[in-house]
């Protein structure tokens, strides 16, 4: 079995003195979409923040591509191949779509940047249509596409997506999920934290269920979705 992309070993983390996550053990396999679901306030965003280095780790270890990165600062984790699509304020609103995409490739050679942009436009053709539009004036769905595109342009080894369908109409949410599944099919390793548990579990490979800062269930995404008790109790889903 190949080395997983990411391992969290008995991680306890939070923000400053506040303890949010308790004894988290998590393995994220390469090339798969790992879905993190749970009710509001469960700790999904904190989990992603912990992986990226934006939360305080009180104890435990974060191992990424075989390296202990527990105390590595966030900006260095980005340079090590992690990309994080934040839930909020995830684009440069006062800049145009083009400027946002150019900023995302600030440290990439021009030829390579152009090639990556073409890949992005194939997945999100709407962004090409809106190239010179100010990002702050895009619709909710387009903003999320732009935010994901910014992450894609980094060609990350590990992509973290924090509730990319939050606040989107069902049709747009479906488009975003399809785009994420497409990225998974291309071999991206993705951790997807989602409120929209059904939509996320339908496209995911692996899944964990978090409640009150602890992992209460884990397994294949479709298995979690088909577990009626769990779905009803934690996700409010009637399967």
């Amino acid at each position: 079995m190949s080395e997983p992309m990411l391992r969290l070993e008995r991680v306890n983390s939070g923000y400053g003195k506040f303890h949010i996550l308790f004894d988290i053990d998590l393995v994220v396999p390469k090339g798969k979409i790992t879905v993190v679901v749970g009710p509001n306030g469960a700790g999904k965003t904190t989990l992603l923040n912990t992986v990226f280095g934006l939360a305080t780790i009180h104890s435990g270890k974060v191992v990424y591509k075989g390296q202990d990165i527990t105390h590595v600062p966030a900006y260095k984790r980005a340079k090590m191949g992690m990309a994080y699509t934040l839930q909020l304020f995830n684009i440069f609103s006062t800049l145009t779509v083009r400027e946002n995409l150019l900023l995302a490739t600030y440290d990439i050679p021009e030829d390579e940047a152009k090639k990556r942009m073409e890949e992005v436009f194939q997945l999100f053709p709407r962004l090409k249509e809106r190239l010179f539009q100010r990002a702050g004036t895009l619709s909710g769905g387009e903003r999320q596409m732009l935010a994901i595109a910014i992450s894609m342009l980094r060609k990350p080894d590990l992509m973290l997506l924090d509730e990319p369908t939050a606040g989107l109409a069902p049709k747009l949410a479906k488009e975003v999920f399809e785009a994420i599944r497409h990225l998974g099919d291309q071999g991206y390793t993705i951790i997807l934290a989602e409120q929209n548990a059904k939509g996320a579990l339908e496209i995911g490979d692996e899944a964990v269920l978090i409640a009150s800062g602890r992992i209460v269930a884990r397994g294949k995404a479709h298995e979690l979705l088909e577990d009626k008790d769990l779905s009803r109790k934690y996700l409010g889903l009637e399967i």
Partner: protein
Amino acid sequence: MAAIDLESTFQALYYASLLSILSVGITLSYMTTKVFNFAHVRFAMVASYVAATIILVLAKSFNIHGDFAWHNMAGMQVRVPLPWWVYAVALVSAFIVGGLVAVAQYYLVLRPLQKRGAGSMALMISTLGFDFILVAVLFIYMTLPQIRRLTVKTISLVGRVAFDSLRMDSLDIVISNGSVTVRGAVILAMVFALATIIGLYLLLTRTKLGVMMRSSIENPNLALVLGINVDRVFAITWFIAGAIAGLAGYLFIFATVYLTPVSPTTPSDQIIVSVFAGSIVGGINSVPGSIGGGFLIGLIEKFFVPLLSPIAGPGIVKYDKVFSMLAVALTLLFIPEGLASVNWRRVLGLGRVKVRKAEEVKA
């Protein structure tokens, strides 16, 4: 007739250029920490003391006697009291020292307080505290001969050199065409202002550092996510803001007869309010806005207010700051984001439509 002449015009341009240089530094530091830095203009004072000391020490160390003769250069009469390299060393020192003092404030005062969760009011007061510290240091330097002699002895290149005060006005470059005499500091101020505009434009739009600065200022979290060391970028921005203030500090040297840390005639205390006014009027979140705002406030105080003296009497010039404060009040009331936020194309476009209508009516 308006109480303004060519020399006064040059003085007004000098002052306006100085304000534009200082206002942009306030804006740069505000954009990173969202705090008005009350110590900003003091960076310029520290830089001016360092530069003045270096000029005097170099002059005395190399036994340079001021050359106060007039020389013909490109058809103009020029007096350059000291060798060019002395001015150059002093200028570079002012630039670097201004930047270093700013970085010291960022790392020693602001960043630790921000990490402890200090609010903007606490941070603003801390900048005032840092300002007091800088004033105290300058006072100690100027009033304790032992400290001054020790400092001079340390940096002097040939043995002990003593001086009791920093008298600089006679060491400025002077250019004359026979009828008009201009001091070098006046020309330099405008050159520095232009260089600051061009330099910042090129830095922010054409360099990788500029891209990193713009993204870190716009959205620090997202910049972090893109792998930018936002903390270091902010520190560099502070260095640039302080270094630009250092340029202004170099210009201060020749603006007063004696450099003193705090007195009613101290350059930095006189202009701190105007510098803030320039930043606010131009746009506290806009680099080009603050440059323009600083220049505008400078012109208001030193060019337009004197024009009122035939109507209001010569005493009106003492109230020049009232007019800048009025400009600030009007800006905050009607365009709180400053002049840079105005859609000037639309404003000018509206004007054109009105003209066309009038022409149509005439036809």
